[in-house]
């Protein structure tokens, strides 16, 4: 289970995440929605500690980072391995094949042998439907395939929670579903997930909870049906009406 308490993040004098509390239970899928610049990416990046929060406590299972004190680089490195991150722009390593992208973390970070790593990577690439594309370089793959490699790369580290930051926003419409399909499968297997997305159908079908954030605070949260059909706050209503 993930727990965030009193999370704060500023860029210079601009406060982007303002005292956010959020719990995500084991195996649950949380979809985060909100207007541009509301802090969705920053929230996910704080969980992956790609941004160092200015304050707050983040814990995943029994591991905890307390940003109200100073946190060592080593602790951050260890904590990062608990989360898998999938970026909007895939960020695959262009000099490595699909296989290399997935094995790199296993060999370099986990110290596995190449053979061991390739076995795991082969299974994961098959799982995301890319068994036939193992030896291709990123430039030889479509956007949807690249993003699926990126998902396999994150899964390889065996994270407790997967973080997705607009994973389909950069994709041509016909490629969106193949990525959502993989994410749905993951959700059904019981992976804990936090997903920033504009795919409202995905949210309705898969999310256990939808969180609407605006101006760095959680404005409203609830079951997808409640948030979409019966929003309580003006800001949520306005945001949802703009999506139609």
């Amino acid at each position, binding site marked *: 289970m993930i727990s965030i308490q009193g999370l704060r993040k500023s860029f210079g004098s601009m406060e982007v995440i303002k005292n956010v509390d959020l719990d995500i239970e084991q195996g649950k899928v949380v979809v985060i929605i909100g207007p541009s610049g509301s802090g969705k990416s920053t929230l996910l990046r704080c969980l*992956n500690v*790609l941004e160092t929060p200015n304050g707050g406590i983040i814990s995943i299972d029994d591991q905890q980072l307390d940003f109200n004190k100073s946190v060592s*680089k080593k602790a951050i*490195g*260890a904590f*990062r*391995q608990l*989360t*898998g*991150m999938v*970026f909007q*722009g895939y*960020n*695959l*390593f*262009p*000099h490595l094949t699909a296989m290399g992208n997935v094995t*790199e*973390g296993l060999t*370099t*970070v*986990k110290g596995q042998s190449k053979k061991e790593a390739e076995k795991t990577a082969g299974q994961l690439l098959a799982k995301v439907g890319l068994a036939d594309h193992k030896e291709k*370089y990123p*430039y*030889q793959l479509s956007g949807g395939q690249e993003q699926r490699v*990126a998902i396999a*790369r*994150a899964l*390889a*580290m065996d994270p407790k929670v997967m973080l997705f930051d607009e994973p389909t926003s950069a994709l041509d419409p016909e490629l969106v579903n193949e990525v959502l399909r993989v994410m749905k499968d993951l959700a059904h297997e019981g992976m804990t997930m936090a997903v920033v997305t504009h795919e409202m159908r995905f949210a309705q079908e898969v999310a256990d909870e939808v969180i609407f954030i605006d101006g760095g605070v959680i404005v409203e949260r609830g079951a997808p049906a409640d948030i979409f059909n019966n929003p309580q706050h003006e800001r949520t209503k306005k945001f949802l009406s703009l999506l139609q």
Partner: protein
Amino acid sequence: MFLNSIALSPERIQRLQEIASTSIGPLIEGAIKFTIPLAIITFIIGLIIAIFTALARISSSKILRGIARVYVSIIRGTPLLVQLFIIFYGLPTIGVVIDPFPSAVIGFSLNVGAYASEIIRAAILSIPKGQWEAAYSIGMNYSQALRKIVLPQAARVSVPPLSNSFIGLVKDTSLAATILVAETFRRAQEIASMNYEFLFVYTMAALVYWVICFILSIIQGRIEGRLDRFVGKSGGLS
């Protein structure tokens, strides 16, 4: 014309043929024993210096950044010839005597280190931030991300400018003649000072450099072709 009459004189042609056949050996020997080894050794040492200098320049430590910047500024802001003279003729006056070849190695390595560090620094900075983030997100630390993800990509970006530096270095090694390294150009000076055929002998020396650089440019093309494999057409890195 005057030039023609010289060129057409049979005695002169014979004399030049003799000079050519007796001096080509020493010139090539100078290239094989000194010019090429000097270029290769200093390029390797220089690259190592350059990588550390580049890393120092982008590091978060003010002191490291400062040291690296001063080093690069001094080397780039002073003539290579003057640097070589300081090492070879200057240092002995304070009791530091270094032989010609090692002096040249020191001088040229420091030079390559400073210039190549700028190339490597630019190459590292050209790698998108998302690559570092993706590396960190799978749990890599700074040095792992650097070695496994960023430097391999930066290397590809810096191959064209670095091979140009290497070709430039081969030509610059002729300056080592001034500190008594018996490389190609110094051999040419010695030969020409005996037969006074300056135009002919120096042209032969030029030809030796040109052949070396021509071969290098072919190798450069091969390496770039190999590296392009990873990017394909969409990479836009080269």
